């Protein structure tokens, strides 16, 4: 295009004429339009950014999710490492090569308390070693009975009726010995059956001697003739109340607890 002042050739982008230096009105208008559009663009871009930006609550929630998820992963990983470092045997690792002969020795020597602990420590499956597991579980129940009957005798020695907790669990564990969860197989594991008989006899003597129950009353703890049977919690409680009554009659005083 031509400059209206000097007639020189000027571009539409030029605000002033490169020859005479006068203002080029068309170039000035064009540059003004460019500036205006650039500003509008900037404004629209900012507006779009603001619209796309999530509200504060949403951002906090997202952050919380990320932090909690990372924390969960961290805790899980650290926990696993802790477990491994603390005792690899809990994951079935580090089992000694001669564990089967160890099991046999513990069983043959009648160290059933250690047998249970050993199987538990090395996560040995009861299905693979039913003989040992059965004996270990019998012994575990017996241990419970021994502990609670000891607690009861301790209270009785002091002239007081045992507290409900120990009394109830002593009768309950005696019931478990009479009707074990895993039935005895005398032909398969005679030693287990013999031991169970001894435990049952001890429980019977305790119920009759220390808790002053009668043979008839404790019959409820024995299985039916066909091997079935179930002792309910109510029945245990009834026996407990009966024992407390008898002990009271015998001159034992109520527990202070």
């Amino acid at each position, binding site marked *: 295009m031509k400059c209206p002042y000097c007639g020189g050739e000027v571009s539409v982008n030029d605000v002033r004429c490169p020859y005479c230096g006068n203002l080029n009105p068309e170039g000035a208008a064009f540059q003004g339009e460019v500036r205006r559009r650039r500003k509008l663009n900037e404004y629209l871009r900012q507006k779009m950014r603001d619209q796309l930006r999530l509200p504060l*609550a*949403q951002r906090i*929630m*997202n952050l*919380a*999710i990320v932090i*909690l*998820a990372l*924390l*969960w992963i961290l*805790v*899980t990983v*650290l*926990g696993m490492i*802790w*477990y491994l470092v*603390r005792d690899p045997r809990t994951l079935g690792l580090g089992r000694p090569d001669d564990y089967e002969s160890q099991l046999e020795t513990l069983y043959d020597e009648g160290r059933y*308390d*250690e047998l249970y*602990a050993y199987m538990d*420590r090395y996560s040995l499956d009861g299905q693979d070693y039913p003989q040992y597991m059965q004996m270990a579980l019998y012994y575990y129940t017996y*241990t419970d009975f*021994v*502990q*609670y*009957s*000891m*607690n009861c*005798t*301790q209270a*009785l*020695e002091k002239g007081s009726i045992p507290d409900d907790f120990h009394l109830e669990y002593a009768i309950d564990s005696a019931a478990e010995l009479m009707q074990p969860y895993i039935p005895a197989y005398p032909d398969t594991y005679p030693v287990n059956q013999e031991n169970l008989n001894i435990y049952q006899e*001890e429980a019977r*003597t*305790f119920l*009759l*001697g*220390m808790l*002053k129950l009668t043979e008839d009353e404790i019959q409820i703890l024995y299985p039916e003739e066909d091997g079935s049977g179930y002792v309910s919690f109510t029945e245990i409680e009834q026996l407990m109340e009966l024992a407390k009554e008898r002990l009271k009659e015998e001159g034992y005083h109520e527990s202070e607890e």
Partner: protein
Amino acid sequence: MNQKNNAHHRRFFVKGLIILLLLGMNYLMFSFFFSSVVEDITYDNESRRDTRLLELTSEGEYADLYEELNLYDLYEDKYDDYWDVTDAWHLYCRFRAAEEAGSSAEAEVLRSRLLELPADQENRTAQTAVGRIQKLVREGA
């Protein structure tokens, strides 16, 4: 506008649920792993455990002693003396039960087994406890 609001609320609800779920999972993991950490810190302290065993023995809380020994699988040789005490108390309990149930023959067997228990423990508290239990039987005879 309504549709937009609904979507907005739904997002809030879903995120809230996710946060609750993650909180629950974190709680479970913490309690699962770190309860054992606390347990280790509390109970792996051998001197504290030994003090507790001594206390139970000297106070005559033999049943609790038995529970403690079983609970933490204390089968090492150094705990043998405590096991002797619980053996003695167990025999005594059986003796008393047999006596009360009128099984005098069984009671006599248990009595002699209890009196035959050696009272030569290295741990003096345990030794005294065994002697005390044996004395109960002697006095009862």
